[in-house]
């Protein structure tokens, strides 16, 4: 191959990389960021969680998705030792949509266990992308939480992407992991065959997860403040109040004001004519 042809190939490769980057930037600007903004304004907890899964699945044409959270009630305060609990499960081809506003997910999916790809993603803070989740050597599915799902159905997870949701609090510059979004069985739009999650798409989903984590944390913070105000007691020190009131009401000035106010309201217009001295 001549040098000229080689250069032309390199140029084409570079141009295609530029195109790919541009296309990813377009997706970020026109799709991911609007989704993130919508999530930030979501006021219902269950709907917020469902939208994270649904929108991510739609972006990468995944057939299924599971959202795991550390302690779902206090997502913003999670620690790495908390179990990752599945809170939303969706599998479009089987018509499964549980968790959130619907029934519990416990019958379909287990909490993440050590050694699984969800646990790896949570521990490392980095995505785990499995082109084929079936490990032939070990004869196991590496997305082990799905075992119960396999037991109950004929469904099989092949391509699988686990992306950590990193919050802003603690955990250094990368933030503490508050949950993991699992997407599985990405389907080619043209023929619906299952395919691996492309690296470019993984980056898009990672961007979405940054925004989703921010929305979850913001919701939890707001909810905590609202809880505080629900518990807020208007504390009034009655003995101090009584003392302060009596200091004023026992004064001659106040007594004269009282009688003049009473006369004024009884309709005696002259009652105010001789105000108390200043």
């Amino acid at each position: 191959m001549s040098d000229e042809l080689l250069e032309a190939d390199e140029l084409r490769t570079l141009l295609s990389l530029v195109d790919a980057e541009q296309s990813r930037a377009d997706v970020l600007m026109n799709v991911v960021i609007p989704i993130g903004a919508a999530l930030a304004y979501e006021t219902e907890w269950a709907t917020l969680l469902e939208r994270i899964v649904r929108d991510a699945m739609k972006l990468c044409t995944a057939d299924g998705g599971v959202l795991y959270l550390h302690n779902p009630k206090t997502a913003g305060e999670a620690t790495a030792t908390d179990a990752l609990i599945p809170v939303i499960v969706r599998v479009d081809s089987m018509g499964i949509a549980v968790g959130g506003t619907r029934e519990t997910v416990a019958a379909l999916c287990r909490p993440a266990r050590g050694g699984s790809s969800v646990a790896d993603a949570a521990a490392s803070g980095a995505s785990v992308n499995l082109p084929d989740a079936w490990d032939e050597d070990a004869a196991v599915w590496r997305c082990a939480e799905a075992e119960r799902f396999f037991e109950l159905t004929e469904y099989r997870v092949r391509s699988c992407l686990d992306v950590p949701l990193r919050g802003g609090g603690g955990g250094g510059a990368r933030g503490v992991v508050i949950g993991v979004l699992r997407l599985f069985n990405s389907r080619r739009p043209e023929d619906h065959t299952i395919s691996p999650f492309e690296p470019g798409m993984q980056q898009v989903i990672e961007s979405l997860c940054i925004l989703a984590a921010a929305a979850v944390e913001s919701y939890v913070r707001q909810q905590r403040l609202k809880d505080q105000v629900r518990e807020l007691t208007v504390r009034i020190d009655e003995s101090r109040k009584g003392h302060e009131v009596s200091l004023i009401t026992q004064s001659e000035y106040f007594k004269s004001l009282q009688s003049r106010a009473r006369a004024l309201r009884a309709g005696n217009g002259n009652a105010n004519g001789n105000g108390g001295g200043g």
Partner: protein
Amino acid sequence: MAKIVSIHSFRGGTGKSNLTANISACAALRGRRVGIIDTDIQSPGIHVLFGMDEQHIDRALNDYLWGQCSIEQAAYDVTPSPVTDKGGAVYLIPSSIKSGEIARVLREGYDVGRLVDGLRGLVEHLRLDCLFIDTHPGLNEETLLSMSVSDALAVVLRPDSQDYQGTAVTVELARRLEVPRMMLIVNKVPAAFDAGAVREKVETAYGVPVAGVLPLADDMVRLASAGVFCLRFPDHPLAGQIRAIADVIVS
């Protein structure tokens, strides 16, 4: 018959003067003739919201209190154009911003009885439907007097412990003075707070209706003293809330 409404707070910084200006403007937008008297003689400020040039305040409430002019001579027509269009009017009786005048009040006090005469004179001469008194924060002779002559008292408070305690004392004194109508306005409530819960807690604690729970609004803060918020941003949700409070107060 005209209503006299005192707008009071136990501590400074509650946004009382700003609310007084906005509530008055909203009442005037309903076609009413409204007066505002700034009895916060020690720290006057409401005139700024109506764009009054301090250099052109020849006569103020202080002059009336020293017997140097009649009360109507200290009243300025500050009717904003949207209010004129609705057939309303706004008159303002400012306090003097001259430091010598303020010092004199602090040093010598004044005849609060003359203040009462002034209130009545204003209502009569300016044919007011409603007179709002912007009081000095805290409890002193002048604020108690304002309460005693008022048909309604609105106490502005923030959701914090010091305001809660001081408001409890104010409410009790107003009850002893048999103020016919009393209401609370909870202002500067952080956005994350549940307004409904705040209203319920405050009403239960004081046994007094809450006329409004207003958020700490960035837009209001930005405008600060540069104008009357409800007139500048009539479509803002906060303006709607203040209009509702004004309707409750003057109803």
